[in-house]
């Protein structure tokens, strides 16, 4: 079973994240970049399926040069090869352009049975790419899964929502997205890290994928961010002295905030 895992490099959630002044896109230079944790889980799921069903695991990442670090991490964990879509023109791409590029990149991999993505990236948090991608590829989508199993040419998944658990099924090939409940990702081993250096990574541009540069990036985006302002700092809390009436004072405060 050949699996493609879509991985994204994101700013470490522990570091301070901000938007650039120039074009209000994410300032990727100011923060440590890591392989998105949800993608570590996506890679883990792919590796577990590979262990059970054989085949090859290819990771695809779209991102600037330094996204190679995220790719290496996925290869260190055990993925077989990688495609890195790297192009200045991609800067500022929206979810539609991103899905378009990824769809084309997936098209360069032979006999793909399954595409695994995270449910949403921790930076953009749109959560739309897997669905758009499935549409573009004409494949069934089984998204937001906490559990995945493959039986023959059928993929089964469990989607947990506030209302309950939905049990989903689709025929392969398919696109799935996984949530943070899917598994605990493995550490890459020492040998894995050393082996990753020798694994093939092909770097491609949008032109290589047959996409016109004007369709992607900031200029190709359907929406523009015109202005951005940092969140105002939190103001100091209000202090309530408890003179025996603390409870009712708190209730008053909550009523004032329209919380109760």
């Amino acid at each position, binding site marked *: 079973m050949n699996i493609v895992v879509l991985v994204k490099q994101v700013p470490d959630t522990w570091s301070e994240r901000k938007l650039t002044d120039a074009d209000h896109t994410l300032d990727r230079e100011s923060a440590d970049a890591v392989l998105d944790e949800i993608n570590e889980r996506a890679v883990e799921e792919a590796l577990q399926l590979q262990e059970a069903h054989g085949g090859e695991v290819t990771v695809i990442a779209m991102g600037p040069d330094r996204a190679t670090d995220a790719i290496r991490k996925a290869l260190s964990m055990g993925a077989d090869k990688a495609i890195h879509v790297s192009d200045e023109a991609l800067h500022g791409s929206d979810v539609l352009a991103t899905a378009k590029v990824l769809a084309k990149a997936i098209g360069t991999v032979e006999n793909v049975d399954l595409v695994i993505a995270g449910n949403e990236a921790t930076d953009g948090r749109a959560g739309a790419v897997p669905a758009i991608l499935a549409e573009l590829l004409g494949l069934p989508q089984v998204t937001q899964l906490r559990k995945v199993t493959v039986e023959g040419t059928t993929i089964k998944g469990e989607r947990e929502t506030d209302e309950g658990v939905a049990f989903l099924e689709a025929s392969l090939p398919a696109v799935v997205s996984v949530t943070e409940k899917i598994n605990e990702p493995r550490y890459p081993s020492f040998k894995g890290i*050393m082996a990753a250096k020798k694994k093939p990574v092909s770097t491609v541009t949008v032109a290589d994928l047959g996409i016109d540069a004007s369709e992607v990036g900031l200029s190709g985006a359907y929406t523009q961010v015109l202005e951005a302002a940092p969140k105002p700092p939190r103001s100091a809390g209000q202090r309530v002295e408890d003179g025996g009436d603390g409870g009712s004072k708190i209730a008053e405060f909550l009523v004032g905030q329209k919380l109760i």
Partner: protein
Amino acid sequence: MITKDLYERKEFRQLVKDFTRNEIVPHLDEWERQGEVPRELHKKAAELDLLGIGFEHGDLLDSVVLTEEIIQSGGSSGVMAALFTLGIAIPHIWQSGNQDLIERFAKPAIRGEKIGSLAVTEPGAGSDVAGIRTKAVKEGDHYIVNGTKTFITSGCRADFVTTAVRTGEKGHKGISLLVIEDGFTRRKLDKMGWHCSDTAELHFDDVHVPAKNLVGEENQGFALIMRQFQVERITMAVEAYATAQRALDLTVEWTRNRETFGKPLIKNQVVSHKLAEMAQKIDLARTYTREVAARVNRNEECVTEVCFAKNAAVQACGEVVDAAVQLHGGMGYMRESEVERHYRDARILGIGGGASEVMTELAARRLGFA
């Protein structure tokens, strides 16, 4: 060049950092109280190939990264001693090329299935390795071993002990290495630091050891032991500056947050300068030690420099952990502060693996001064 080489091991560093933060730090206090690390930890480290580094894969510079990162991410030299005892227990076996011993002892240790110890020191012979008296007499296809070994790291948990025994004449020419699995008694020793690393006295009373457990050739043990000291000593130098770095990191954090006389401690020049001096000592020790490690790794002759590295790093460490406790004030004296542990753990580094005076004497002789 050497530093660059080390920085290229970024991913491995990250792995060790994750491993330490997730698998060691949350449990370390408990292991310190229990007096040992669990076998499970060996298994987990083995799954990530950490125990085979320097043997099956990787080299001394990878071990340097491993040691730095375990300690600087919140582990300790005590964890290093307990988890990586195989680093002193199996190199002789590994290099002897004896497939039987490699299969029975070295590989299971690398897989985290067996724990090994190295027993050289005796109540009557520590620095003077050539003075050991534990006797092994050959009878048929066995050796009969009698004597006592002491201060043996992981000796309580050990499944096998690579033991220095006297098989021949007095002095360094009559020493052999035997792997001993059982038949001896163990006494757990209480000590100042390294609480998570069990340390034992081993008593051998007519212990029968199969002759096939001899490592290398009879009476050639002294050279095997001495050769391995290079790696052990450079590793202890790394433990020393890494411990100092960790203590400094904790102290910087502490002095930023701790206020006395209306301002953060670090805002006092006497404190910020103290921290800068600590950083300077650490950086000098680190740079020199890494350089010497690279030379050892290339098999260059550098016995003197290894002595220098160990002594310099140990001295820097001693000064830094002392200042770290001082700058923590009363909290630095409390078990709940991490620097208190490093202060105790650091004390062994100038005693084990060749005491500082012995290192200086060796250097003096190599330099032709003594």
